[in-house]
């Protein structure tokens, strides 16, 4: 068994841990850091419930070894709200009923965040395309699309105000 030291920044905090080489990033996040907002749905790289941002790109954390994330910056659902205020995406999922059981929601929000950072005003098709790596068994997706549209509008409006 090979043990290694891994260091990564998760939601702005730097962590160093001694881990087994085969530890998956999702287990590192959930079990070593006790950040259980990132879910395991399928365990087979299909559902996207485990989606996190790694250096700004979405990855399925059930299919990345924690060691590959050494030195990288990770963002999970716990890092999305700032200073106790919900992110516009979280607010959108609330306002538009973008969730039922909520199991897929953390992954959906991370994928939507990645989408909006590259494309602040996506069309409906672009939203559906951008979220196509994330499965939802409850909502039928329409409400999720509306939630992302809500966030995109709110974020654009906020940006205009700032400018």
């Amino acid at each position, binding site marked *: *068994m*090979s043990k*290694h030291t891994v260091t990564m920044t998760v939601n702005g905090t730097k962590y160093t841990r001694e881990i*087994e*080489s*085969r*530890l*998956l990033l999702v*287990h590192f996040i959930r079990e070593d850091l006790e950040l259980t907002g990132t879910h395991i749905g399928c*365990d*087979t*790289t*299909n559902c*996207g419930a485990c*989606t996190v941002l790694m250096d700004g*790109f*979405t*990855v*399925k954390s059930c*299919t*990345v*070894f924690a*060691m*590959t994330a*050494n030195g990288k910056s990770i963002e999970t659902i716990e890092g999305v709200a700032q200073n106790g205020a919900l992110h516009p995406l979280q607010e959108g999922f609330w306002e538009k009923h973008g969730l039922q059981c909520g199991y897929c929601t953390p992954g959906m929000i991370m*994928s939507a965040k990645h989408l909006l950072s590259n494309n602040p005003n996506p069309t409906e098709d672009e939203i559906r*395309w*951008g979220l*196509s*790596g*994330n499965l939802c068994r409850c909502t039928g997706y329409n409400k999720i699309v509306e939630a992302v549209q809500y966030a995109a509008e709110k974020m654009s409006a906020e940006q205009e105000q700032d400018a």
Partner: protein
Amino acid sequence: MITGQFTYFAPTTIEEAIQLLDEHGFEAKILAGGQSLIPAMRFRLSQPGVIIDINGIDGLSGIREEDGNLVIGALTRESMLEGSHLVQSRYPLLADAATVIADPVVRNMATVGGNIAHADPANDHPAVMLAYNAEVTAVGPNGARTIAIDDFFVDFFENAMEDNEILTEIRIPTPASNSGGAYIKLERKVGDYAISAVAVQLTMNGDTCIAARIALTNVNPVPMRAENAERALVGMTVTDDVIETVGEEAGAECDPSPDLRGSIDYKRDITRVLTKRAINLAIERAH
């Protein structure tokens, strides 16, 4: 599900990686995007004792045109192809494929080199690279060598590289003028492997096809060129009848296995239909 145990290395240079491969031989596996290897390890379909993670090696990633070729670094992520203006504007066959491989999250990790090295007949890049007549660079202890794509896929999940070689780049010849290409894939849903998919790259002179390569995904144990189909197309004045014959040849010469994606007859017939569609689109793009 966790994988079996292994010893982990994260070399920062190609030389170091090759030395590790040379030392550990058959026991060792390179880890690129991990999107095929990690699932296989979790299902215990693969149990390497040594993992050599190449994600920390600089210079293995990138897309550029050089000396009449499009050069793609092995560690280039699928999402980089999708976002590349160069690929979108000049290599439509590659651009088509980049958007239908897996899903957007998987594409942020999955690499072009890994897709080819894996030699999975269900993967999409093998057919694309066969249609482009690409070349692969493999680097080992004795230096670099070039492998023509026609010689690269030797068996089911088996490529022509030695255990101590690393795939470093893929070179696609820049198509001549009046060339066009297309990749058409039928999948059950986003993120699934193809039921069948067809890659076509051809060159036209007026209504006559003067060069063509056609390759098929997931309808044969080894990624394959549809050579009978190519013969039925090259040198012909292209009419609907000719295209029908080419499609029939492709459907007949592949060797699909029946599975949850369909029966043998269904897959042959879909291959015929997709071949026709891909040729029509490639010709449209050539003009």
